[in-house]
């Protein structure tokens, strides 16, 4: 069987794996992007205790491997209490969302803190409340500034989904590896590479469109 025939034969399995990759990717993004924005507001809040708590959360999430966090949620929690035994997919979404929220928090924080102090003072003089200042003045500028960093993180997420193999979920790369082990052939890796490239290509194009939408002052 030549390479093309072999890859065509594997296509249904590869597409199923791609579906799993996309499911984890999109659900994680839908949860962690808004959550990241909300929690970043707590991160810059004037309440010291809240800000510190968020800082510690980010430190733990960014300071340990995502692979380890996945294994903790899946294998570790049931060892603590059997009632914490959840299906693999739920475990994956929990671990990915918590991890990516932490990264998004730090990105949004950077954007918020990059707005000059003078604008805050001006808003204060104009009699805007803290909420109005955040909602109308700071966030629209901050989000615009962090778009490139967010895009980076989104592309990383596409590839990070491959880690769920460790909790017995079969996404694209895992499906490919299984075929390689079973058949002792490595051609399928090429197909997987091309599929990842297509996925990240779509992400890059979408990012470009969003950036153009936000570029209303240029």
């Amino acid at each position, binding site marked *: *069987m030549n*390479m093309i025939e072999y890859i065509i034969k594997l296509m249904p399995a590869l597409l199923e794996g791609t579906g799993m990759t996309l499911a984890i990717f999109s659900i994680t993004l839908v949860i962690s992007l808004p959550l990241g924005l909300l929690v970043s507001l707590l991160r810059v809040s004037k309440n010291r205790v809240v800000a510190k708590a968020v800082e510690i959360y980010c430190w733990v999430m960014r300071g340990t491997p995502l692979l380890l966090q996945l294994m903790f949620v899946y*294998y570790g929690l*049931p*060892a603590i209490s*059997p009632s914490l*035994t959840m*299906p*693999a997919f739920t475990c994956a979404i929990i671990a990915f969302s918590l991890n990516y929220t932490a990264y998004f928090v730090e990105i949004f924080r950077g954007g918020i803190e990059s707005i000059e102090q003078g604008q805050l003072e001006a808003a204060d003089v104009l009699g805007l409340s803290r909420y109005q200042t955040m909602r109308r003045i700071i966030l629209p500028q901050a989000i615009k500034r962090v778009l490139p960093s967010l895009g980076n993180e989104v592309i990383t997420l596409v590839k990070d989904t491959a880690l769920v*193999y*460790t909790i*017995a979920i*079969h996404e694209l790369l*895992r499906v490919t*590896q*299984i*075929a*390689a*082990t*079973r*058949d*002792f*052939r*490595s*051609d399928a*890796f*090429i197909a997987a*590479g*091309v599929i990842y*490239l297509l996925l990240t*290509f779509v992400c890059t194009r979408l990012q470009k469109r969003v950036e153009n939408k936000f570029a209303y002052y240029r």
Partner: protein
Amino acid sequence: MKRFLALLLTAVMALALFAGCSSPASQSSAEDTSLDDIMAKGHFIVGLDDSFPPMGYRDENGNIVGFDIDLAKAVAAQMGIEVKFQPVVWENIALEIANGNVDVIWNGCTITDARKETFDFSDPYMENAQVVIVLTDAPYQTLADLVGKQVGTQDGSSSQIAIENNAEFSSSIAGITGYPTYDKALLDLVAGRVDAVVADATVFGYYYGIDPTTYRKLDEELGAEEFGIAFAKDADAFRAALQEALDEVIANGTAAQISESWFGYDVTAN
């Protein structure tokens, strides 16, 4: 857009190069120098997954040990050369041997028809059964008791093939959960996400030896299979020489001795 096309083109070319390397040795040279090459360098390299007890794994001091390791050393001694062990990622083993990073795969490798298309195998040197592992206090006694239950195993393993080949069993269970390694499947058996785990008898023997209170196996088994040593397709001379040494090691009782020390009985094929 132009830049992207250029990038894509580069990527495709890189992949093509990769593909060229990985295509199983189709351009065999006119003469077979495989044995001469091995003899000239004075050793052969065994590729193995070093997390596969008791066939090949790391002991507490980080040394690679195991039944296959001892057997490979005995065969190398018989041939009068050295043997080196190269840990590899099992999924990439086809690449490793195609690229010549390792000379043989000797790692409890089950002989299957699909694998024979890519590699040549030695004669079977050992028999292995597929056993069904459950928790000690589980109510299951026979395969029939597992109707509607979830069964775990290692992805792409011969255990998975054994489940799928047993049509009656595989259609009676709820489904198969595939783990990257057997130890993760056994962890999840304890967590309760699967009700049974199918694994090599050797794997069960190892974990049972460590912890005889948690697991037990059903009396019914899922069929036997044979382990062989895998070679690149164009290495006939080397394969023949190694086979001869292996036959001698089995005939003179060394293999049986090694087997006794790892399994408590003789598992080698006669």
